[in-house]
C-alpha cells in the first residue's frame, strides 16, 4: 500500500493544464510538418505554415495555442494499491484545474448550469474519468477540449448488419458535416462497440493516441489508413478553405458490444489536439 497526499494530484494537474495549453506533443508537430510538404492548395499551405508559427509563438511567449483553452478532461489511472490522504480526490482534481486556469492565464469557459449559464470563473468542474489499474502508481492525463470541434462530434447507433461500411460512412458523414467549423486539419477519434456512453468515451480516448500510430488490430489499422485517405479527398482542407489536408490522423478504438448493436462515436478534435500526462 502506498499513500499519496492529494495535494500532489492538485499540483500535477495545475502544471499539466498549463503545459497542455501552450505546447503540443511532438507527434502533432511532426504531423503538421509533413502536411506542409504534401498540401496541394497554396492557401492551404500558407495556413498550415501559420499554424506552425502559432505553435512557436505560443511556446515562446506563453500565449495559449488557442483562446478556447477548453473544458478540462482528466483521466486518472489509479493503481489499486494506492491510498489517497489529505482530502477528497475529486476536490483535489478540481483545485488543480482552478489553479491551472486562474494562475496560468487560461480562459474560463465553463458555465455552472447548461441552461442558466453562469460562468464558474475558474473553469471548474473538470470532467473526470477514473480507471482502477494494478499497482501503486497514478497516471494523470489532462486533455483540455475545445468546443468548436466538440460541437461537431456525433454518436450513431448502427445495426450489426451495417458492418464496417456503416462505420466508415458514419465517420465520413461526421467529418463532412463538421467541415470548416471544427478547425481543420482535424484529428478524428472513433469509438466502435460497447454501449452508448462507452463508445463516446472510447472516441475521446482515441484522441490521446500519437498521430501516425495505428491500432494493433490489423483490420482496424487498415480502416484508419483508408479513412484518413478518404477524408483527405473531401477537399475541405486547412481552415475549411480547400485543400488536401483535412485530417492529420484517424484513431479508432474498439470494445466488445451487444448482439443487437453496433454503436459508433466520432469525437472530432481540431489541429490543437492537446494532452499532457504525468505518472506519480
Amino acid at each position, binding site marked *: 500500500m502506498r499513500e499519496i497526499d492529494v495535494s500532489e494530484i492538485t499540483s500535477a494537474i495545475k502544471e499539466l493544464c498549463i503545459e497542455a495549453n501552450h505546447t503540443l506533443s511532438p507527434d502533432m508537430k511532426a504531423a503538421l510538418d509533413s502536411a506542409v510538404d504534401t498540401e496541394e492548395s497554396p492557401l492551404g499551405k500558407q495556413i498550415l505554415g501559420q499554424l506552425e508559427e502559432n505553435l512557436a509563438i505560443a511556446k515562446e511567449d506563453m500565449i495559449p495555442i488557442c483562446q478556447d483553452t477548453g473544458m478540462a478532461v482528466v483521466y486518472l489511472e489509479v493503481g489499486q494499491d494506492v491510498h489517497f490522504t489529505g482530502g477528497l480526490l475529486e476536490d483535489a482534481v478540481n483545485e488543480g484545474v482552478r489553479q491551472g486556469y486562474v494562475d496560468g*492565464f487560461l480562459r474560463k469557459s465553463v458555465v455552472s448550469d447548461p441552461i442558466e449559464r453562469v460562468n464558474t470563473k475558474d473553469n471548474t468542474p473538470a470532467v473526470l474519468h477514473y480507471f482502477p489499474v494494478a499497482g501503486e502508481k497514478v497516471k494523470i492525463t489532462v486533455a483540455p477540449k475545445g468546443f*468548436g470541434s466538440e460541437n461537431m462530434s456525433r454518436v450513431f447507433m448502427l445495426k450489426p448488419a451495417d458492418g464496417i461500411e456503416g462505420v466508415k460512412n458514419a465517420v465520413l458523414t461526421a467529418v463532412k458535416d463538421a467541415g470548416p467549423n471544427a478547425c481543420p486539419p482535424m484529428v478524428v477519434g472513433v469509438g466502435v462497440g460497447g454501449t452508448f456512453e462507452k463508445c463516446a468515451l472510447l472516441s475521446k480516448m482515441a484522441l490521446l493516441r500519437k498521430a501516425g500510430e495505428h491500432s494493433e488490430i490489423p483490420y482496424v489499422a487498415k480502416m484508419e489508413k483508408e479513412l484518413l485517405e478518404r477524408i483527405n479527398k473531401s477537399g475541405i482542407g486547412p481552415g475549411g478553405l480547400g485543400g488536401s489536408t483535412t485530417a492529420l490522423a484517424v484513431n479508432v478504438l474498439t470494445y466488445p458490444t451487444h448482439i443487437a448493436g453496433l454503436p459508433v462515436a466520432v469525437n472530432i478534435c481540431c489541429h490543437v489536439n492537446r494532452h499532457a500526462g504525468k505518472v506519480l
Partner: protein
Amino acid sequence: MDRHINVPYTKEEAKSLKAGDMVYLTGTIYTARDAAHKRMYEALERGEVLPFDIKGNVIYYMGPSPAREGRPIGSAGPTTASRMDKYAPKLLDLGQSGMIGKGKRSKEVHEAIVRNDAVYFAAIGGAGALLSKAIEASEVIAYDDLGTEAIRRLTVKEFPVIVVIDSEGTDLYETAIQKYKKEDE
C-alpha cells in the same frame, strides 16, 4: 488577392472585397460572441439601444484568454460563427458591415449579407497566439460581467482575415472545397 484596408471601411470598399481575398485590417473592431449577442438581441427586442454604434462596424466573434502583464490581450482566435446566425441578420440590417469568425453560415445570414453589402471574413481557427500579435489594444466597453464574453473594442494592425462570403453572396467554403474534392470510390 491581398488587400490592406482600414476598418471601419466604406460600403464601396466592402463591395470591392471578393471571396478568397486575403485582407489585412487596420483600425477598430468590436468583439461579441454568444452571450453578448443574446443580450444585444434582447435589448433590441425591448426597444433599447445597443451598447455601441453598430452602424458601419465589424464584429469579431471572439472571447480571448486573459492577458499576461504588459500585453493587450491573451490568445485571440475566432469562434464558430453559426452560433450567432440567429442574431446576425438583425444586426446586419441595423448597419453592421462585417463579421469575423469561422465556419459555415445559414441561408438567412447569406441573404442578409447580400441585402446589406456586408462581408463575412474567416480568421484562422486555432491560431489565437499568432492573431493576438495583430491586436494592439483591447478595452471592455460593455457587459463586463460576462468575462471573456464581454464586448471589447480592439485596435488592430494588419489583422489577417480571408473573405469567405462576399457582398454578392459567393461562398468560399463551397467553391474552394469543390476545387480540391477528389472522387471517392
